């Protein structure tokens, strides 16, 4: 019973000692916690995540028919490019690029139509002055994007032309309908001669239509086929035209002296209906905006996550994890180095404290200190920075406890590798640097190749960031694999730290 009492007395005393020592080192707290937190705050306030438009200069010869269109289109693209100028001087553009007056130079080729007619694609070249690989990739994307915009512009012109043609054939369809109707009426009245007159007029109307409808009919038919429309109905203008021409009531002359013309009259009624459908199709086609014809699909991406995750919010779980890991590693690594260098370890060796008890007490002390700091951090980011917290606070507590537990192991092992406090701080900084690159804080771990990626799984922050992001930003429960991995990792580190402390205290 006395032993149990002593156990708790020691735990409390260790905690009190470590806590008071930490509190009495305000510079340390400032460096470890407040400093990084202020950096985060500054980053959150200053970072917009909106890329400024690229300062762009077009190089295009004066007699190029696209020159005016390019200027107009550039104005529409002001969300991605800022038109600095249009010139026909390639060298001027390059000078501007080299002195960083512009970000992008776009060369529009001459003789575009001739190139296309010769069954070749016209090449749009883009020049940039970036050295950052990510920026280079963006510039390559920008080049492809501008080519796509110009391609769409050309397609849109074609579509507009087709619509104009379709509008022109409208009166021809009206005439064909009128003449077909008159043909039918004459036959119904038994006036075969007049019917024959109107029949010839319909044939003439249909032949003219066949020629006139050309571009627009092909375009509309192409759209229908490409996007899975009903080729047998409104889109199939050419087929309908052919049907009307092939109708026997139109194609064959009426014979006089027949007993009745019921069959021909029915065929003419059918012909009239088809022509009316054709009229409707053409009306529909001309009513579609050319931009919709050339860009029938637009996309809108929506997040399945309940909260809106700003760039700052996204990084907050990672920052919390890195701060806690770094603080814990630094404090624990310094703690044992100090005990050793100050000589208090000598007192411990004579005292009834066992190595495992010293380590347990230290773990407990720094775990509680870490939890206090984590609580403050969590409250500040939740209510100060309005960071989303979609998950459970209990899950967050579990993640933080496991993270601190594993980080303490790293810190204590560092303390055994360090002879001086300076060495301990340096190794702690290296651990932080490692974590920034390999924990998934900045870079998605999928970009890391094996076996390098294995390094990531030796860093407590890797698990911590994964679990805390899931919890805070997605509201999902703790990933069991990550949780047990981190707990196992922490236990392994505790065991190693215990062995090292035991060896240190055993003999000199």
């Amino acid at each position, binding site marked *: 019973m006395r032993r149990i009492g002593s156990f708790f007395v020691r735990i409390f005393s260790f905690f009190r000692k470590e806590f008071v020592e930490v509190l009495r080192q305000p510079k340390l707290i400032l460096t470890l916690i407040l400093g990084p937190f202020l950096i985060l705050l500054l980053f959150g306030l200053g970072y917009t995540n909106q890329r400024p438009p690229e300062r762009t200069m077009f190089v295009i010869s004066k007699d190029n028919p696209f020159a005016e269109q390019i200027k107009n289109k550039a104005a529409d693209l002001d969300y991605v490019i800022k038109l600095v100028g249009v010139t026909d001087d390639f060298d001027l553009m390059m000078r501007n690029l080299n002195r960083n007056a512009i970000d992008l130079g776009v060369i529009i080729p001459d003789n575009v139509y001739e190139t296309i007619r010769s069954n070749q694609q016209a090449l749009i070249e883009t020049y940039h002055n970036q050295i950052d690989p990510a920026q280079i990739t963006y510039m390559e994307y920008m080049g492809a994007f501008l080519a796509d915009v110009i391609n769409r512009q050309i397609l849109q012109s074609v579509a507009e032309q087709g619509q104009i043609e379709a509008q022109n054939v409208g009166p021809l369809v009206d005439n064909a309908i009128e003449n077909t109707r008159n043909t039918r009426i004459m036959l119904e009245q038994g006036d075969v001669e007049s019917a024959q007159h109107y029949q010839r007029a319909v044939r003439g109307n249909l032949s003219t239509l066949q020629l006139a409808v050309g571009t627009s009919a092909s375009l509309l038919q192409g759209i229908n086929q490409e996007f899975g429309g009903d080729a047998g109905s409104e889109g199939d203008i050419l087929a309908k035209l052919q049907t009307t021409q092939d109708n026997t009531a139109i194609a064959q002359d009426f014979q006089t002296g027949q007993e009745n013309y019921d069959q021909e009259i029915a065929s003419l009624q059918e012909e009239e209906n088809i022509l009316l459908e054709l009229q409707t199709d053409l009306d529909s086609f001309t009513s579609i905006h050319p931009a919709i014809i050339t860009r029938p699909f637009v996309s809108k991406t929506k997040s399945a996550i309940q909260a809106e995750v700003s760039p700052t919010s996204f990084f907050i779980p990672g920052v919390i994890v890195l701060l806690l890991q770094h603080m814990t590693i630094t404090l624990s690594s310094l703690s044992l180095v100090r005990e050793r260098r100050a000589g208090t370890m000598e007192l411990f060796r004579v*005292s*009834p404290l066992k190595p495992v008890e010293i380590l347990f007490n230290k773990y407990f002390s720094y775990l509680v200190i870490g939890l206090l700091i984590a609580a403050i951090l969590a409250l500040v980011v939740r209510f100060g920075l309005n960071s989303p917290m979609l998950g459970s606070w209990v899950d967050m507590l579990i993640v933080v406890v496991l993270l601190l537990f594993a980080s303490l192991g790293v810190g204590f092992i560092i303390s055994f590798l360090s002879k001086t406090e300076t060495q301990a701080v340096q190794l702690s900084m290296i651990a932080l640097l490692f974590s920034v690159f390999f924990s998934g804080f900045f870079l998605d771990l999928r970009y890391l190749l094996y076996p390098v990626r294995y390094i990531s799984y030796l860093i407590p922050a890797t698990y911590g960031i994964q679990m805390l992001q899931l919890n805070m930003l997605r509201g999902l429960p703790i990933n069991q694999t990550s949780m047990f991995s981190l707990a196992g990792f922490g236990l392994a580190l505790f065991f190693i730290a215990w062995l090292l402390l035991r060896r240190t205290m055993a003999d000199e």
Partner: protein
Amino acid sequence: MENVLMQTVTSLTDNVISFEGVTKTFGEQDAVHDLSFVFPKGKIIGLIGPSGSGKTTTVRLMTGIYHPTEGKIHVMGSDPRSFTLEEREKIGYMTQNFVLYPDLSVKENLAFAGAIYGFGFGHRAKRIKNLLEFVELSDDSKKLARNLSGGMQRRLALAAALIHDPDLIFLDEPTAGIDPILRRKFWDHFIDLRDQGKSLVITTQYVNEASYCDLVGVMAEGKLLFLKKPEDLMKTAFGGDVLMLNTEDSLSDTLNNELQQLPFVQGELTFLQDGSLRLIVDEAATALPQVMEWFKNKELALQSAEQYFPPYDDVFVKLIEDYRSNIETPAENGGLA
């Protein structure tokens, strides 16, 4: 005392510490070499010696911080390497350097030291109060340890070593940097502790403090040259008790020779610059009356005659010088190497 090692073999229970041929080597260097001795229970044993003589290493071997390269050590009947928790709780240890926490206050340091031994708040509060009074730090109990003077830090460390009322106390230079008045107070307290049945092993560079010890071990170059009662050390250093005589007239060579031939007189007579005569005798108590009788018989005027107690500094210096000059060897003078 002459055969302390044998006592170890025959009566371990009466001895608190025993060393048998203990050597501790660091690298190629022997920090202590072939130490064999026993320390009796309930005594103050002082270890004196020049810096680097192996005093601290010997204490560390006793506490189990160091393990011997050769030889056997028993402390409270156990090998220090396998001390039980109960045995460790009986040990108090004050290191040579200040090893408490500079960012904790005096009181917080003592509270932590007490807690290590499982003392709850209630139990240790009164103990801390008494110890603070003893080391005269009551008024400074809230001061951070880093803001204390060197002497105050030593006092704090001493209080921390005694916080759990240990039975066996190792104090490595507890009075270094302490003013003479407080130093005296410390020794009074050590004697009190001894009288309560506790055993104390105390290293010191203040050689005069040897007089407070029950046994004094003189160390040099990793060896224990002597382990004796303080008064016996004087005899060892000078070859016997010292009598100091002042005569009105100087003695003739014949009388000098005659005096030297007396059976209780050891070695040569020494005439000091102030005219006094130093005489080494077997036992001052028996020799002094006989010397006075001899002067009376010779009708020589004797102004004063008394036993002289040389300062322990002189004793220590003499012992070390003699050792270094290889004049004496441990086997010849009864010391235990």
